[in-house]
């Protein structure tokens, strides 16, 4: 119930039964108020108060208001916030509660919260939350403590029934003396008038005041409505559901997709099929066993000694030819430069960039063997192919990086490197020989 509607009713002639409650004196200025307050205080009154539109300087002393204990209350609230901040973070993130305190119900159990290998209890990281909770609870203490100590909210006040008193929030200053003050008497009015009051008036109180019926009913109805969410939650906690839970936002849980098995049309692909054909070059597992020469470099339990030029993929690299030719060799040199030369060197001697770099810095890299090492020189092509595919000693497998046909092209090129570096004059074509033997 608003205070000022009460005030209005009091102006009406047929109001409720009233009784005088206090004496209200109006003053024109803050100065006059302070001087009058000193007189009222000196006269020994205890149940009285001053009212002003803004906090008047010096009025505390004039009335004799003692310093409020609010700061102590706020400090206690802040200390509670600090404690909650520390305990909350310790309990939820830094204690193995499930083991150490098994009697705690699940929904309150904390645990050692593992995150990024950080310590469970690292105080610097806990400071922000402790600080914020300290401030938050202190602020609650300041605001609600102020209201509580002031006895607010107090929506009904006999003073607000006095029309004149409305100017207390505008530009007038008042003193109110309650009639149940032990010193109250006929001298009180004279005291106030003598202290410079511009007007003195009696504030009436309603004898039997009760909030109106509709006000009570509204509160009962409101309270019932507020209980509905709690009741629903309580019901849901104990009720056994047979239906799957409702997905309010369908998009995030059930997203649109094309299912290959359902042969759905798919506009993304030119052929309109959502079931996609094999990617070119896809191999079935049995391909490996059906053609061990091409895929593994083996024939029976022996390393293959020939390059499987019968295979169409390899012929494609050779430009359709069914034998090793220059085109295949160029392909091999190209792949070799990309995948092999950084370790083996462009000439296959085993001193590529990586070997040079690591040797200079003493990193401990084992350089690869030279291709003209007697061990390597005698290896059949199938063995070389297997080495590229699966790696050997510290060399990593490259089978997943280089397609099969390219691996064979590299093998052919490696064979050529070996041949070139173990070559004699007889290997040079006859017409070129004379050029090489001529002295410069």
């Amino acid at each position, binding site marked *: 119930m608003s205070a000022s*509607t009460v005030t209005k009713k009091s102006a009406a002639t047929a109001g409720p039964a009233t009784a005088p409650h206090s004496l209200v004196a109006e003053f024109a200025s*803050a100065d006059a108020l302070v001087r009058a307050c000193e007189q009222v205080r000196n006269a020994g009154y205890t149940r009285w108060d001053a009212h002003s*539109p803004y906090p008047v300087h010096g009025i505390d002393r004039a009335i004799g208001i003692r310093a409020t204990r609010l700061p102590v209350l706020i400090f206690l609230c802040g200390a509670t916030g600090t404690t909650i901040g520390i305990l909350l973070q310790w309990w939820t*993130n830094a204690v193995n509660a499930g083991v150490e305190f098994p009697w705690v119900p699940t929904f309150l159990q904390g645990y050692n*919260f593992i995150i990024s290998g950080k310590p469970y209890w690292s105080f610097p990281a806990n400071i922000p939350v402790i600080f*914020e909770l300290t*401030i938050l609870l202190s602020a609650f203490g300041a*605001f609600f403590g102020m209201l509580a100590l002031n006895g607010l909210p107090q929506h009904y006040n006999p003073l607000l029934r006095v029309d004149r008193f*409305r100017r207390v929030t505008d530009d007038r200053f008042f003193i109110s003396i309650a009639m149940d003050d032990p010193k109250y008497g006929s001298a009180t009015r004279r005291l106030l008038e003598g202290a410079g009051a511009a007007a003195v008036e009696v504030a009436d109180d309603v004898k039997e005041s009760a909030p109106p019926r509709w006000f009570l009913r509204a509160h009962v109805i409101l309270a019932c409505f507020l209980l509905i969410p709690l009741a629903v939650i309580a019901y849901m906690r104990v009720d056994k559901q047979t239906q799957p839970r409702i997905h309010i936002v369908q998009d995030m849980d059930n997203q649109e997709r094309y299912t290959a098995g359902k042969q759905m049309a798919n506009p993304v692909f030119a052929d309109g099929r959502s079931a996609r054909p094999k990617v070119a070059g896809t191999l079935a597992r049995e391909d490996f066993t059906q053609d061990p020469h091409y895929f593994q470099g083996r024939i029976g339990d022996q390393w293959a000694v020939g390059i499987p030029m019968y295979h169409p993929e390899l012929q494609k690299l050779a430009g359709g030819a069914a034998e090793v030719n220059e085109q295949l060799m160029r392909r091999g040199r190209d792949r070799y430069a990309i995948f092999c030369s950084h370790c083996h060197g462009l000439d296959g001697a085993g001193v590529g960039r990586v070997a040079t770099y690591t040797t200079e810095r003493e990193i401990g890299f084992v350089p690869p063997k030279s291709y003209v090492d007697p061990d390597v020189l005698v290896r059949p092509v199938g063995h070389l192919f297997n080495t590229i595919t699966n790696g050997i000693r510290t060399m990593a497998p490259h089978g997943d990086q280089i397609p099969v046909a390219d691996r064979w092209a590299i093998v052919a090129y490696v064979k050529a490197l070996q041949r070139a570096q173990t070559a004699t004059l007889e290997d040079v074509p006859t017409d070129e020989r004379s050029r090489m033997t001529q002295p410069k």
Partner: protein
Amino acid sequence: MASIVHDRDNTLERPGQRAPLVTGGHDLHGVTEVVCRVAESRTAPAAWYLTMGVSAALLAALGAMIGYLFFEGVGVWGLNNPVGWGFDITNFVFWVGIGHAGTLISAILYLFRQKWRTGINRFAEAMTIFAVMCAGLFPGIHIGRVWLAFYLFPLPNQMAMWPNFRSPLLWDVFAVGTYFTVSLLFWYMGLIPDLATLRDRAKSKLSAFLYGLFSMGWTGSARHWHRYERAYLILAALSTPLVLSVHSVVSFDFATSVLPGWHTTIFPPYFVAGAIFSGFAMVVMLAIPCRALFGLKDLITLRHLDNMNKVILATGLMVGYAYTTEFFVAWYSGSAWELFAFKARAMGPWWWSYWIMFSCNVFVPQIFWFRWARTNIPVMLVVSMLVNVGMWFERFVIIVTSLSTDFLPSAWDTYWPTWVEAWTMAGSFGLFFFMFGLFCKFLPMVAISEVKAVLPHDAHAPAAGGHGH
């Protein structure tokens, strides 16, 4: 409606004579009249209706965008991998920053006994609350599965699932939550005596009831004032470290990561200075139309604007210093990644946003070295708008440039907002101005009781001081 047509120049300090904080020779009743007649008037200026119409439309757009986002998922935004934060967090940091000026004016200037704050603190605080509402919106809606937003809070649950308290994102929840709550309490506490003024002047039953309900039966009792002032002082003292902590914590979101351009210790002070900078620009931007439309030129005087422009100049220099220091440290650190990140800001694909930021925040406020500019309404309106543009771009630059080009070139990607993000951002301005418009019309825009306390009344009284003497 405005009774005062011309600004009275009260910006000059004459030796031996204090420049008045309130012009027009108002007494106590005059102050009440000036402030209350806005709320009591049955009509409002045409510009108010226009603002409310536009901002209501934008607010509706915000609702539609959020609904669309919730229904479709965050894919409707232009975010990608690696740019997982875009307009959403840019707007979050922007709005949180805006709020800081309100708290600075209401708390820090109060502790420093700056009496001129009484003219502007009320609506600066209101601005804080609405700005923090806009800010809190963005992290709330950007989390993807919004129905799990309660994971943010340490709520007991049957999964025994707790938040990670060592994460700056969790600190943010506590910092922004506390900031909003404390700002709201501070603002409402200041409103109580002024709501009582409106209650006592109310003509209609409804306004008497509502103002009466929220003024809690305030009677201006000296004993009440005594506790009220003590609570106010302590709230100010609590808000001061709080406001510094909030933007520091926001900056930790970035500074505690290892991303080049984010991983810097300069962030907390630099973010706080930037927040106050943009917040003051917003206060000036709002004060200029409000004082003109609602006839508050006697209470929000040129001197107030002049002072705020000085703060803008000072904080603008601070952010300029921070920008320069960042570059210096990027070079001096010897970290190739750091230097690259900063070169990419100034000269990379986002160079234009960097230079919008730099010129709006560093070059433009320099005009406030001149008194004529600090007291010229059109100039300060343009500057404050540009500062807000610049500060928005500062957050955009920090977030997007650092995310889009991190350590590994193969992970780089660019970012461009979608129409949904653009309308969500516009909608947040709608929310802000709608709330602010309601506040202007229905609540006392100026702290009546505080202004009365600094009026030069009672010439022979010991001091016509503000609160807390």
